[in-house]
């Protein structure tokens, strides 16, 4: 009976000590993961800023004109096509065409 009580007591002490040690270990782990999270968040923010800078209209226009030789459509080249329906006799259809391309036919 005494042996049992001593064993149980030792177990309790062991559990208590183990719990304390594990708490410290988990504390360090949580800290490490928090640090990792901060680093990843920092990387995410850096990428967001880069993406925003690269998608700036200023830069896109520069690349389009200087690298790909594109230019703004001239007046009359872009027309909005209107459809005539029962409900809306002149509603705008979301369709744009370059008039020069259509007229020339690109045969």
């Amino acid at each position, binding site marked *: 009976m005494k042996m049992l009580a001593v064993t149980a007591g030792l177990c309790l002490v062991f559990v208590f000590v183990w719990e304390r040690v594990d*708490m*410290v270990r988990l*504390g*360090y782990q*949580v*800290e490490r993961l*928090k640090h990792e999270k*901060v680093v990843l*968040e*920092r990387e995410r*923010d*850096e990428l*967001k*800023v*880069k*993406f*925003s*800078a690269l*998608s*700036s*209209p*200023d830069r896109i*226009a520069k690349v389009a004109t200087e690298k790909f030789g594109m230019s*703004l*459509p001239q*007046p*009359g080249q*872009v*027309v*909005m*096509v*209107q459809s005539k329906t029962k409900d809306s006799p002149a509603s*705008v259809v*979301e369709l*744009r*065409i370059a*008039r020069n391309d*259509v*007229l*020339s*036919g*690109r*045969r």
Partner: protein
Amino acid sequence: MAGSPSRARRYVLLLVMLCGFAVVLFRLVNLQVLQAAELTAKADRQHQKTVSLEGARGTIVDRHGKVLAMNMEVPSVFGIPTALESPAKTARSLSPVLRVRTDELEKKLRQDRSFVWLARKLDPEQGHRLEHMPMEGIGLVMEGRRFYPKGPLLAHVMGFAGMDGEGLEGIERRYEPQLHGEKRVVILQRDAMGRTVFPKGQAEQVPAAGHSLVITIDEVIQYIAEKELEEAVTKARAKSGTVIVLDPQTGAVLALAISPRFDPNAVSSLTADRWRNRALTDTYEPGSTMKALVAAAALEEKVMKPGTMLYGENGRMMIANTVIHDHEKLGWMTFAQVIQKSSNIGAAKTGMALGDQRLYRYLQSFGFGQKTEIDLPGEVGGLVKHPREWGRRSLASISMGQEIGVTPIQMVSAVAALANGGVLMKPYVVSEVRDAQGKPLRQILPQVKRRVVSPETARTVTSILEGVVTDGTGAKAAIPGFRVAGKTGTAQKIDPRTGAYSSTLFVGSFVGFVPADNPRLAMIVVIDEPQGESWGGTVAAPVFRRVGEQVLNYLGVSSDEPVKLALVSNR
């Protein structure tokens, strides 16, 4: 018998032991009771670390969610001069990374101090390079830095935040209470090696980030406005320029461009003159653009009709011992032609027909002489004198846009009221405030200030202003396929040396809206001190056309004219 020597030794030994225990007991009482508070505090200082944390500043995005300003954690570098062996060597190795002169760094590192800032809020790339360097006596601390990824785009509206993260100009300043993150001091536990442990409850200690703002401006429309304005200002060799694009139905600002531009990422070398938002802070005499509003007042008060005949006095009329000129000799003309030909004499006669009290009332009603209350800092109310302060010529002068100071935002708001059927809207820039998780907290809705003129009057003025573009001074504002309504203005500036109107310094402007029958855009273009040709119809109207046609195309607004297409098969 004096006891045995062994007993005496035992007593001595006991005494020594008792003394020893007494010393230990005294020390124990001293530590545990007498010095308890002081030592506990000392232990806490060693085990605990007090850190001042600030939540990230809120993000600013355009109406389509494109990021215009955001915070990022970047390294700041400090030195511990007392812990350095060779300040010269450290300065030499840090100099190229920090982009600070070696002698400057060395001077800092030779100070008799335990902490000195070497460089704050570096670029992320600099931080990456520093991570791979030996850093004895040098430390890094992460701080939030404001980034404006679009560079100069929208800089005058965005403003900028200072080194300590507080908004100093523009939206950053106006919305400082919403944008700034929560500041909080937190206590962390640390072990013997200085590592932070036991972060129990720390999640609740993290300070909240600032709120995010959604603005009404569209970055593409803004880009178009800035590009065209820059070109026009450069071409005219002008001092500065302003373009504002409004949604006339709501008062939402779609673009606000100022030239010259600046980069909010690098403001330290600039003066306030460069980042001043001239659209709100600078007044100018509007010149003939004012005639559109005087015409609206005259039509509303029924002192004029579009067909009312007025005599142009052959381009010369005497008022209060001064002569008013027109740019050409004009005879009889209709009231509509007075506006279309921009006759000063016709406008003066219209003003006189209205009378000073009624004209003043309409000026106030259109919002002149008072702030528009746009949600940006630094706005001025302009200059509108009370009729009791008017001179004998004032009625005529104000009717043709002199003796009155307005801001571009006032003028475009007034003309937007004509575009939307006669209602003055409050212009605004921020449409929504969101929390850090993106959840909407507050929506800012369009706000009606007052009705200024009736829908009939607004329609009549619109028709007259269309004539300005089709048959008058604003021909260069015409956009093929669209009905444009607008008014040109060319105002002489006061020569600061003489105090009189200059014959060389002008402000050329154009204000209008498009499409005239269902306006989607109200726009003002102001070019300050253009060299050479300085007529509003020459320097400002073409900017209106170029911005207008690109923006209408971008918004997918269909042309007023039916287009006949010849579809050709590829086969």
